[in-house]
């Protein structure tokens, strides 16, 4: 696992933390409620570093796939959002669709396609 993939995974982890905080702090005072927004900024800064090497289409597919699964598990474990079979199937449809979509769309200018999958 290369440095840039670790950075991408860190960006996703911070995003999951930020989204969970968003839910946990939903009734919190404004000063506390701003914390998730700071975290999302940090997450995007990490993402921009990862995107120097990892193609955008690959990064977005991994980001949303892991994000949707992660948030579904966190919702199940901490926020009483129960994972029913039909909900798991619907989330799988969305993730499969995102992977296909990112394979089937040209994100980058041709010269950036030389970036390796390392």
């Amino acid at each position, binding site marked *: 696992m290369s440095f840039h993939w670790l950075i991408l995974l860190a960006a996703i982890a911070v995003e999951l933390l*930020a*989204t*969970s905080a*968003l*839910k946990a702090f*939903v009734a919190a005072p404004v000063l506390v*409620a701003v914390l*998730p*927004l700071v975290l*999302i*900024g940090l997450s*995007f800064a990490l993402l*921009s570093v990862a*995107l*120097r090497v990892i193609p955008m289409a690959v990064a*977005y597919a991994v980001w*949303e796939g892991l*994000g*949707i699964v992660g*948030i*579904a598990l*966190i*919702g*199940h474990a901490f*926020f009483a*959002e129960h*994972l*029913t079979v*039909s*909900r798991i*199937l*619907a*989330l*799988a*449809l*969305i*993730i*499969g*669709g*995102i*992977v*296909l*979509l*990112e*394979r*089937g*769309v*040209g*994100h980058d200018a041709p010269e950036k396609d030389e970036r390796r999958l390392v």
Partner: protein
Amino acid sequence: MTFAASAQAFAMAWLALAVTLEVIGTSLLKLSDGLKRRLVGALGVLCVVGAFAALAQAIRGMDLSVAYAVWGGVGLVLTAVVGSLAFGQRIRPAGWLGIALVIAGVVALKLF
């Protein structure tokens, strides 16, 4: 409209705003050329943060896991469509199939 139904409609409206801001934000980030054009990039980041704030309002009235999946899925579909219309990016058949799957998944989430 009952109270619960209107709260849900309210949440959907916030979610729609979150998706819209996200699509504008990611399109601006694309235009910023790897944040080299700083003003465009800063506007993009501002839109993404605004999208997140709107998402915070949406999840007062709906499950986080549903809101997040719809936000991510619909956001990427619309970003692809904007890329195709505004930046001339071609959507290949696999991409259209992916768009259909995302929409089917979002509809299934709302129905079941």
